[in-house]
């Protein structure tokens, strides 16, 4: 299940959806807005996205994960709009019979989401507004899955 929304989400509820007898392992990743950026206090972070294409890309990433690993379920929830430090921003949940598939698929989903899903972050810091720059470490993290 793929959702892009301004509202908060509950990791426990999303994990609970996969608690079934055929699922042995559930891995979740929760991203939280940190209170500091470039050595400055972060006032807020605003997420912009490309409606329509975002959902398509997230669906595509989820389908790709399901072709690579034997998964019982995949959820991706990503928030947009203005977020404050300490707020949840993204959730990925994977469910599988065994833990290795669940762990690897969750890492894959996060790596691909960071480099493929059309979201853009703008930070409001004490010294002004800044668009977050893409990080080469994220590209490298995503690249390891195509080896």
């Amino acid at each position: 299940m793929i959702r892009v929304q301004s509202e908060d989400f509950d990791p426990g509820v999303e994990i609970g959806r996969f608690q079934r007898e055929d699922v042995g392992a559930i891995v979740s990743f929760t991203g939280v807005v940190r209170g500091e950026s470039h050595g400055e206090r972060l006032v807020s972070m605003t997420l912009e996205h490309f409606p329509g294409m975002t959902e398509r890309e997230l669906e595509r990433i989820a389908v790709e994960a399901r072709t690579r690993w034997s998964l019982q379920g995949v959820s991706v929830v990503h928030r947009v709009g203005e977020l404050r430090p300490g707020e949840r921003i993204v959730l990925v949940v994977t469910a599988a019979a065994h833990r290795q598939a669940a762990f690897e698929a969750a890492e894959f989903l996060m790596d691909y989401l960071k480099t493929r899903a059309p979201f853009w972050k703008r930070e409001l810091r004490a010294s002004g507004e800044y668009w977050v720059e893409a990080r080469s470490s994220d590209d490298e993290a995503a690249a390891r899955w195509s080896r």
Partner: protein
Amino acid sequence: MKVLYFAWLRQKVGRGEETVEAPSSVRTVGDLAAWLGARGGGYADAFADLKRLRAAVNQEYGDFSVAVKAGDEVAFFPPVTGG
């Protein structure tokens, strides 16, 4: 065709989307970017360094050599930073 701008491109151009009538010489994403940049002002600023830009045609990522035609939706934006 319809052109969309996101993130700092949107801010520099001053709008999120517009419909343009590109001349027939605009055959690729790169042609479109050059044509838009030639408008000057915020457009010149937004399209000054194409290496900093990414594009999608009809919601599919594509490089600047991808063909565009009337009726297409072309989006320009910086590298993504979600997650």
